[in-house]
């Protein structure tokens, strides 16, 4: 129960910080909508639905990256992460609290992005919504770990995409697959498996990322 209370306190803090500063979510919303608008005009009219689905996933991935670059900014200022690391709570609670915050921001961005996609390109089916939700879990889990890792370095804006994009290629494969095939179950299961494996790995390894 104490662990959960720590996670809730940390996640609540992230939501409060965003509510106050409005640093991350407005940027993510603006980026994803403007990207979809650009794609709408860039995609040839005979390109087909499959290409549009791929572009949605590209937009979602880079929107997630935009949010993750800013995920540990508040902790980097005034070295707050050191204060959290010194607390007697399980350090993985810091990862989980931050991950929940990242997941919430992704969800909020997609609440705008998916209807915008439906408006600009094609109607959205349940399988795409399910794929996006499952993808969010993996993006938040892996992204939070890597954002913490990158935040310690000076070239963090360069380092994070270099670490993040190769690791989330399976999410793109699973997401696009689930969105375009007649048998999305296989791809959704793949996304679920990715989430489980990488969430456990990130949870277990966070302690080593935030300490020397």
């Amino acid at each position, binding site marked *: 129960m*104490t662990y959960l*209370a*720590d996670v809730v*306190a*940390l996640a609540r*803090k992230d939501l*409060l*910080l965003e509510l*106050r*500063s409005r640093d991350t979510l407005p940027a993510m919303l603006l980026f994803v909508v403007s990207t979809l608008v650009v794609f709408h005009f860039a995609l040839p009219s005979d390109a087909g639905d499959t290409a549009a689905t791929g572009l949605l996933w590209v937009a979602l991935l880079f929107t997630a990256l935009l949010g993750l670059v800013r995920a540990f900014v*508040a902790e980097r*200022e*005034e*070295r*707050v992460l*050191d*204060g*959290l*690391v*010194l*607390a*007697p*709570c399980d350090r993985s609670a810091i990862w989980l609290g931050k991950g929940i915050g990242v997941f919430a921001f992704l969800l909020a961005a997609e609440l705008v992005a998916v209807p915008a996609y439906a408006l600009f390109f094609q109607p959205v089916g349940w399988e795409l919504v399910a794929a996006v939700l499952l993808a969010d879990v993996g993006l938040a889990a892996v992204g939070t770990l890597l954002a913490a890792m990158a935040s310690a370095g000076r070239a963090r804006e360069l380092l994070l995409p270099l670490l993040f994009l190769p690791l989330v290629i399976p999410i793109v494969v699973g997401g696009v697959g689930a969105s375009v095939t007649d048998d999305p179950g296989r791809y959704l299961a793949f996304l679920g498996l990715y989430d489980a494996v990488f969430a456990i790995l990130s949870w277990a390894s966070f302690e080593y990322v935030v*300490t*020397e």
Partner: protein
Amino acid sequence: MIVARDLGRDFGSKRVLRGLDFDVARGGFLVVTGPNGSGKSTLLSLCAGLLVPTRGELLVEAERGEIGYVAHESLVYRELTALENLDLYGRLYRVPERRERIGMLLERFGLWEARRQRVGSFSRGMAQRLALCRALLHEPELLLLDEPYSGLDRDASELVDGVLTEAAGNKTVVVATHDPQRVRSFATEALALA
């Protein structure tokens, strides 16, 4: 409580600390002095467990939740209020009767009136007072204070004197300072870094 033998720390090719040997008994008070860049802050980070030594050994007999650490930075969120920051730390540090303890510290350090202000709007001195509240919140066994008088006016400096008077003999204290005269009366050990 703290034992260092041939302690050294490098950052890349730069050797910041080398060959340090010192002991601080439980309840002891170590004053660390030295010019800028001599490694005072690095030594405190090593004692806090935030850095690991490059060479030698450092034994600190204190768990994570038993350390109170004041760094150059305040270690608090600028977008949260003083009260919200202390409440978060109080939860994470499992402080019993959290609200009462926070209220008492804010009163003592003259921040009660500013408790609902965002830390980003605080002056340097107010932020330092809040950092002291944060470090003392969980009544730590080991106090690591890096320039605790930095940015403080005379009244606030006297508050720190009061904290150190209470801590001397009861808690283990390591203070890094440019002004060793101010804490000389508390010191049981001294370490001058070159």
